[in-house]
């Protein structure tokens, strides 16, 4: 069975969301140089994974939920969070999505079904299964999407959760964004399946669960594959492991250094560590955002004029997000003890 492809309007929506994530994160990245010190700690970008994120979330319904990792800017954006509040959170302001308490790694927007993230690799995967249990017994046909990386599949929590999700037929889709790297380690250096030339979706076989691999740089392919997995989950047939192959277009995160050292983004590890410039440049040539723009323009879904107009609108939106965040006040120090306990 294969899903209906999204109609023209929906495809434009998909492209727009991809563009919004990319543009938002370009502003996040620029902030390290435009506004040194405004972003602290560790920030991780989704550039290269936009098609996978938007294609997956295109099927999101009222009551569905999504959970992710520290690399979390894309999801709430697609689900409707205000970029102003997102940027303010990343800048640590009182007007932030999480009142400045969570920062870049922990964006959360419960009203929109984005229930939060763990910065501990693999730890969020069972959280998603717990939410899926709640959806299962609520019997409203809702599903949960669990987003995580390839490296996370080496954490015991991944296998423990796949087994239970399969056994209990939870309405859950595991979306593994395989960007080929765990920081500076390639999949083949840390994963026996990858070293043997097998896709990581093979891990589903250990848990009597379907496993599929999809080109995560093609939003329509992801739309189809994740869509089928979601249908399967909604209809009570249980979870699916989707390996979505993407390429991270920035380094894992900004450099790690104590205060005093200005933070910045180094070159991608393929170049900086492995000297594989060609690998990186090939990925750049396949950049999903311009590529999907090309497809839509080529097949007439989008005119170049409309595409440029969209780009301008999105640029303005994100410009305003930065402005809003910069002007927002920091939280009151007296509020520091709030929210430890309900």
């Amino acid at each position, binding site marked *: 069975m294969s899903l209906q492809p999204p109609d023209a309007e929906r495809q434009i929506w998909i492209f727009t969301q991809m563009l919004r994530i990319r543009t938002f994160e370009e502003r996040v990245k620029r902030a390290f140089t435009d506004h040194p010190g405004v972003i602290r700690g560790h920030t991780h970008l989704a550039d290269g994974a936009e098609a996978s994120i938007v294609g997956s979330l295109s099927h999101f319904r009222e009551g569905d939920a999504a*959970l992710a990792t520290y690399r979390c800017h894309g999801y709430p954006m697609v689900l409707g969070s205000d970029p102003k509040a997102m940027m303010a959170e990343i800048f640590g302001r009182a007007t932030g999505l*999480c009142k400045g308490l969570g920062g870049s790694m922990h964006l959360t927007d419960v009203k929109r079904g984005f229930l*939060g993230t763990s910065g501990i690799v693999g730890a969020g995967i069972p*959280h998603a299964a*717990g*939410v899926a249990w709640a959806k299962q017994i609520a019997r409203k046909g809702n599903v949960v999407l669990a987003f995580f990386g390839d490296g996370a599949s080496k954490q015991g929590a991944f296998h*423990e959760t796949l087994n239970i999700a399969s056994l209990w037929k939870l309405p859950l889709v595991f979306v593994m964004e395989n960007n080929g790297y765990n920081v500076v380690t390639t999949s083949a250096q840390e994963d026996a399946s990858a070293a043997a030339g097998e896709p990581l979706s093979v891990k589903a076989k250990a848990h009597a669960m379907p496993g599929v691999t999809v080109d995560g740089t093609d939003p329509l392919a992801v739309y189809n594959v994740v869509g089928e997995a979601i249908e399967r989950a909604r209809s009570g047939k249980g979870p699916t492991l989707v390996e979505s192959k993407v390429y991270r277009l920035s380094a894992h995160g900004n450099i790690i250094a104590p205060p005093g050292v200005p933070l910045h983004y180094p070159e991608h590890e393929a170049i900086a560590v492995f000297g594989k410039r060609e690998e990186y440049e090939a990925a750049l040539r396949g950049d999903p955002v311009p590529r999907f723009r090309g497809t839509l323009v080529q097949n007439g879904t989008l005119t170049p004029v409309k595409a440029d107009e969209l780009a301008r609108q999105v640029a303005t939106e994100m410009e305003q997000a930065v402005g809003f965040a910069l002007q927002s006040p920091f939280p009151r120090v007296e509020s520091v003890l709030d929210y430890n306990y309900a």
Partner: protein
Amino acid sequence: MAQMPYIAAVDAGIHQEMQRDTTVLYFGQNLATTENHAFVAAYGHDRVRVTPISETAEIGIAVGAALAGLRPVVELYMAEFMLVAMDQVVNEANRFRYMSGGQVKVPLVLKAGYGFTAGWAGQHTGTLTSLFMGVPGLKVVVPSTPADAKGLMATAIRDDNPVVYLHHYMLTLEQGEVPDGEHLVPFGKAEVRRAGGDVTVVATGWMVPRALAAAEQLAKEGIKAEVIDPRTVAPLDLDTIMKSVDKTGRVVLVDQATPHASVANIIAAEIAQQRFRALKGPIVQVTAADTTIPYSEPLEAYVIPDERRIATAIRAALK
């Protein structure tokens, strides 16, 4: 009032809450494997499930279910089994509310036994209370009587935060009066198990009956020991302890844990900071010997604080 063993009272607390609130879940290993399991029969498999031996997923699932508005109670059996999932306990369940700026709450109960010094040797006998104490966002409960076992479990389930509920294995079959019907014991309210003006003795779990036995014995020598059972160590009822210290000026802290991993240290530090002027002598501690628990019976008995050692310490504190 009904007489029942401590362990039955724990179950009674879970039943009380599962009956009144359909959002309460109860799951874990080696339960609910047949249809006539008491909880399955009463509440069904939507709410009661057996899990594989996957503590990280079990507790992580509880966190997720709580995020989604349910109130999971996870059966973990032994506190040590939480160690394979410690991140979920002290760095996930307790963090989500704060990191989200108060958008979510994570009401869950992690039920685990501890302190089973009955020949279980090195890996199953620990008193790990202090590992969970002092972790922002987490609450920690240590009932020492059947009545508290029921009432604290019910309160734990109603609490909107993650609660580590530690029942003491050596108390499993201790009988006691337990209030019928709805029974709740508040968090952060210590119980004065025995009143006395000469010395303040603080103990938790299995150490409470041992401290009371020592106090009983010392009464014959004319020593009036006040024995306080905090019942919950997070929150910790320091008021009751400090009031007693103001009265006695003498303190003996009894703890089944090892010397540098005990709740006693935390109580001692609070007293030494807040009540120095009231103290008439050193804050004396009676803890386990600084060792992994040995299997052999005489060695195990030698390691754990007993009535004699507690009594000796109390006499010393009064010197």
